C-alpha cells in the first residue's frame, strides 16, 4: 500500500468532526476518535471547530464559505495532522482550500493546512498501519463509496482494506458502486426529484446485495441512503465505517 509521509509523525493528531457528524452521528465520531487513540496517538478535538465550508462553497456563497474555512484554519493552528472522517469534507479541505484562498492573505496558511489533511481510513491504514481483530459474529455487509472519497481523495482502497481485515465480515460489492447516491449537499433540495431518483436506485442496488448493513465513510451519503431506506421500509442498517469498525473490534 502506498504510504503517505505524515508531516508530523509525532503522537499528536487533530480530529475534525464535521458538522454532520457533530449534529447527527456523534457515536460514529466518538468511535473514530477511540479507534485512533487505541493506536497510541493523542487526539485533540478543538472545541472551536465547526464546518469545512463546503455547503456554501458548492452553493455559490463563496464569501461565507471562506469565512467559515478561515475559522478552521485558525483553530487547527498546530502542525499536527488533521484527521477527517469524511472523504467529502477532507476533499474540501485538502483540494479546494488552496483555490478558495488563492490570491488572499491566507493563501500560504491554507496550503499548509491542506497538506496536513487526511481522510480517517487513509490515516489508519497508511500511517498508523492499524491491525484490526474482529470480535463480531459472521455478517454480510455492503459498502457505499462516496464520490469525493473516491474521486477527490482516492481513499476507497484504504476503507475497504480495513473492512477486509475483519475475518467474520463478508463484503458484497454494489453493482454500481461508483455511481453517486444523489446527496450532493444542497443538490438534494435544489433538484429533489433527480436526487430522489438517484437514491431510489442506490437503495435498490444495496437491497440486491442481500447485505444486512451498508457501511459508508461519509455521513452525508449515509443520511441520504438510510433516510430513503427507512422511508421505503427497507430493513437494512446504515453505519459509518468508524462506528462499524469500533463495534466489530470491541464487541
Amino acid at each position: 500500500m502506498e504510504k503517505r509521509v505524515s508531516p508530523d509523525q509525532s503522537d499528536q493528531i487533530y480530529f475534525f468532526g464535521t458538522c454532520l457528524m457533530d449534529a447527527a452521528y456523534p457515536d460514529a465520531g466518538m468511535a473514530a476518535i477511540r479507534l485512533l487513540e487505541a493506536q497510541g496517538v493523542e487526539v485533540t478535538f478543538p472545541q472551536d471547530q465547526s464546518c469545512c465550508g463546503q455547503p456554501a462553497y458548492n452553493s455559490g456563497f463563496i464569501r461565507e464559505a471562506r469565512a467559515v474555512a478561515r475559522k478552521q484554519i485558525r483553530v487547527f493552528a498546530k502542525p499536527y495532522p488533521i484527521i477527517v472522517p469524511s472523504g467529502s469534507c477532507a476533499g474540501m479541505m485538502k483540494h479546494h482550500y488552496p483555490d478558495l484562498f488563492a490570491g488572499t492573505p491566507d493563501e500560504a496558511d491554507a496550503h499548509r493546512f491542506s497538506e496536513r489533511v487526511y481522510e480517517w481510513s487513509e490515516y489508519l491504514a497508511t500511517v498508523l498501519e492499524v491491525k484490526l481483530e474482529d470480535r463480531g459474529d459472521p455478517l454480510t455487509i455492503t459498502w457505499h463509496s462516496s464520490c469525493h472519497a473516491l474521486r477527490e481523495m482516492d481513499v476507497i482502497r484504504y476503507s475497504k482494506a480495513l473492512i477486509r481485515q475483519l475475518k467474520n465480515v463478508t463484503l458484497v460489492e454494489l453493482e454500481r458502486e461508483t455511481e453517486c447516491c444523489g446527496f450532493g449537499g444542497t443538490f438534494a433540495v435544489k433538484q429533489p426529484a433527480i436526487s430522489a431518483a438517484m437514491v431510489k436506485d442506490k437503495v435498490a442496488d444495496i437491497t440486491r446485495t442481500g447485505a444486512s448493513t451498508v457501511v459508508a465513510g461519509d455521513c452525508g451519503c449515509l443520511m441520504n441512503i438510510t433516510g430513503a431506506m427507512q422511508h421505503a421500509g427497507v430493513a437494512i442498517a446504515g453505519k459509518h465505517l468508524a462506528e462499524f469498525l469500533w463495534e466489530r473490534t470491541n464487541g
Partner: protein
Amino acid sequence: MGNHTRFDFEHNVTGALADDQLRKNLRKAMDILVDKRRTVFPDSEYLEQLRSAGNAIKRRALKQLPRLLEQLEVNCTKNGIQVHWAEDTAEANRIVLDIMRRHEAPAIVKGKSMVSEEMHLNRFLDEQGLEAVETDLGEFIIQLNHETPSHIIVPAIHKNKDEVAAIFHDKIPDTPYTEDVEELTAIARRVLRKRFAAAKVGLSGVNFAIAETGTLLLVENEGNGRMCTTVPEVHVAVMGLEKVIEKLSDVPPLLRLLTGSATGQVITTYVNMISSPRKSGEKDGPKEVHLVILDNGRSRMLADPEFRQTLLCIRCGTCLNHCPVYVRIGGHAYGHVYPGPIGKILTPQMEGLERAGVLATASSLCGACGEVCPVRIPIPDLIRRLRNESYDQDGSAVVEGGGYKKNLAETLVWKGWELANRSPLLNGIGTRLAGKLGKRIPRVGPLKKWTRVRTSPKVARCSLHERARNEGVNNE
C-alpha cells in the same frame, strides 16, 4: 438563439423521470457506451497520458487561437476552400442560405453536426421554404419524428428498436412494419440514396480543422458524411472556432481520444480529411467547398482563463454517458442543444444565466464527468463557478445574467450559517436546540423537499462537541 420555447427545467425533469421506457432505454444505452470505452482503453496509465496530451494540444491551440484561425483561413483559401466568418448563428444561417440560393438548391443533405443544431439551421431553412435532410441514421430517425437530438453523439439514443420501427412505418410512405435492424437500415439507406443523388449542396460538421495544412477532418461511421461532402457539387462545412488545432501531428492523440471516448472505437469506419474542392482533371468531389467558422459567444469564453477550458471540448459525449443525472433525465430535459455535463457549462455561457443558469444546479458535483473527460475539462469546477456567478457576490461575473439569483432571503440564510459556524457559542446553541426539538423541527422549505422520499435526519440529543468534552477528549 432565443427562439426556442420557454424553458421549464422542473417540468422537463418531472416528465422524463416519469417515463419508464425512456429511463430504461437510456440506462441500457449508457451502460453499453461506458463498457465500450472501458474496453478500448484497458490501460489506465496510457489513458491518463493520452488525456494529458489531449489537454496540452487543445490548450496550446486556444492559447494562440486568433493566429491559428488566420493561418487556417490562409491555408484553406490557398487550397481553394472559401472561408466565411459568422459572429452569431443568424449570420451563419444566412451564409448557408446564400450558398443554397446561388446554386438554386431546394434542399441540403446534412451529415451530423452539432453546430448546425446550435444554429437551428433546419428550422431556419424550413422558414425560408427550403429543406434540410438529415442523413445520419440517428438524426434521420428523430427528424422523421420532429424531434431534436438527445445526445451529442447518438442523437436517437432515447429511442429503442421498437420505437424506431413504429416511426419508420408511420412516417415513411409504403413502409411495412419491421423490427429487423438490417431491414430498418436498408429502408433508411433506400430513402437517403435518392436524396444524396439529387442534392446540389451538402453540409457537414468538422471535428478538427488543421491550421498548418488547411485540412478539415471529419469522423463518422455510416459513410453518410462522405456522401454529403463528395456527392453534391457544393460542400459547406460548419464549425465552432475552437475546432482549430495547430498541426497535423496533433491529430493522432486527439483522434484516439475522440473515437475511444465517444463510441469506444479505436478508429471510426470513415476518417475524412478534406483539403480542397475537385481539382482539374479529377472526376469526382465537390466543385466548391465552403467553411463557415462560428463564434456565437466563444470569444467571450476564451477571454476568461477559467471558462476558456469549456472550449477544450472535442464533443465526444462521454461526460453524458457517465453522468448520473443525464442517464435519468435524458438530453431533451436540458431544454437546449447541448445536454449533460458539458451542456451545463456551455449552455449558460451561450444563452446567459437568466435563461439557462438553472442547469448549473442539476449536478451533485459527483465528479464523474471530470474523471472521464478526454481533454481534462474540470467540469465540476466550472459548474461551481457558474453557481458563484449566479449570485455574483463581488460583482465580478463575466457570464451574461450574472447575479440573477441574488436575493435577500437566501443571502440571510447563508449569512446566518456563516455566523453560526464562526461562533462556537452560536454553533453549540444551534446543535443543542436542534437536538432538543428533534422530530418537532417543522418540515418546511428544504426539509419538506428532503422528506418527500426520506425520513427526517435525526439530530442527536448530545452533539459530538459535547461528547468529546464530557468524555475527556483533549480540547485545544
